[in-house]
């Protein structure tokens, strides 16, 4: 089994993702500079957080138009796993791997804080180590993380089981007060049409060891590993 973590100019969570996959979960992992392209088959590709190309134009817009993203689309099209975290989520949405867009927070400031997430789908390749309805604790760090979709699409995604995570309070209620950036229906983790792509604004790699304050994020990577092992 082998994971890949992409690196664009401005990626800054690439080594964190690598650390969780390689050092915490014990899985082979390559860091791939975007100009190299994805030269072999990987079981999973992670698009990490950061500020690719300074978020010029729009978060993720420029990274999305680099040639390596064609490799990512082919990888996803073959049914293999893609995880986009934060800037990776913005890139995933810009590239059409999931519907919608992640744009400026409702209150337009950078937010860096711990949030609670409700697990909406515990059957996807990324979430089988969670229980449906479980409340987990993972940090966010973004200014452009408000999930926007055309009218009706958010509800449709929820009904179709394509929402992995929603912002909630400690009791698991998805209220406006527990929605830090104004995302549609508190949605912050979206699955692609075939379930093999997940993009999310919160940072599971920053909550993968107890010493960091929570290890709730680790189970996301363990879910991916279990899914690959069971294939």
């Amino acid at each position, binding site marked *: 089994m082998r994971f890949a973590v992409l690196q664009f100019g401005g990626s800054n969570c690439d080594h964190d993702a690598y650390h969780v996959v390689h050092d915490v979960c014990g899985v082979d992992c390559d860091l791939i500079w975007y100009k190299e392209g994805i030269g072999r088959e990987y079981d999973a590709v992670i698009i990490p957080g950061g500020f690719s190309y300074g978020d010029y*134009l729009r978060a993720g817009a*420029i990274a999305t138009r680099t040639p390596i993203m064609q490799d990512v689309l082919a990888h996803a099209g073959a049914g293999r796993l893609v995880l986009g975290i934060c800037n990776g989520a913005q890139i995933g949405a810009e590239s059409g791997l999931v519907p919608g867009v992640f744009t400026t927070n409702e209150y*337009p400031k950078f937010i860096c804080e711990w949030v609670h997430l409700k697990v909406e789908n515990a059957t996807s390749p990324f979430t089988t180590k969670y229980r449906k309805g479980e409340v987990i604790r993972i940090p966010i760090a973004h200014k452009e993380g408000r999930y926007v979709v055309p009218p009706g699409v958010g509800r449709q995604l929820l009904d179709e089981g394509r929402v992995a995570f929603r912002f909630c309070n400690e009791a698991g209620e998805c209220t406006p007060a527990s929605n830090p950036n104004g995302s549609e229906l508190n949605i912050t983790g979206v699955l692609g049409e075939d379930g093999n792509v997940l993009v999310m604004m919160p940072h599971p790699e920053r909550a993968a060891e107890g010493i960091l304050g929570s290890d709730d994020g680790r189970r996301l990577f363990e879910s991916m590993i279990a899914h690959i092992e069971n294939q």
Partner: protein
Amino acid sequence: MSFTANITISLKEGMLDPEARAIQHALSNLGFETETLTTARVFSITMDVPTEADARIRAGEMCERLLANPVIHSYEIEVLK
């Protein structure tokens, strides 16, 4: 021939514009009450193409492929000689 395309990218009508709201609030603090305030981004691009129509088509392609995100943006193109 050289043409300049002025491309204006704005949020679709009804889209929340947090930056506009913040600016409107700041103007209000300075005593400037405003009814509405919207923001937009303008790209001024010169290109060497045979006709004005070609410049417009190229500019449209730029919007579709990179400059605008159709989920939230609309765009207008003005071509000058």
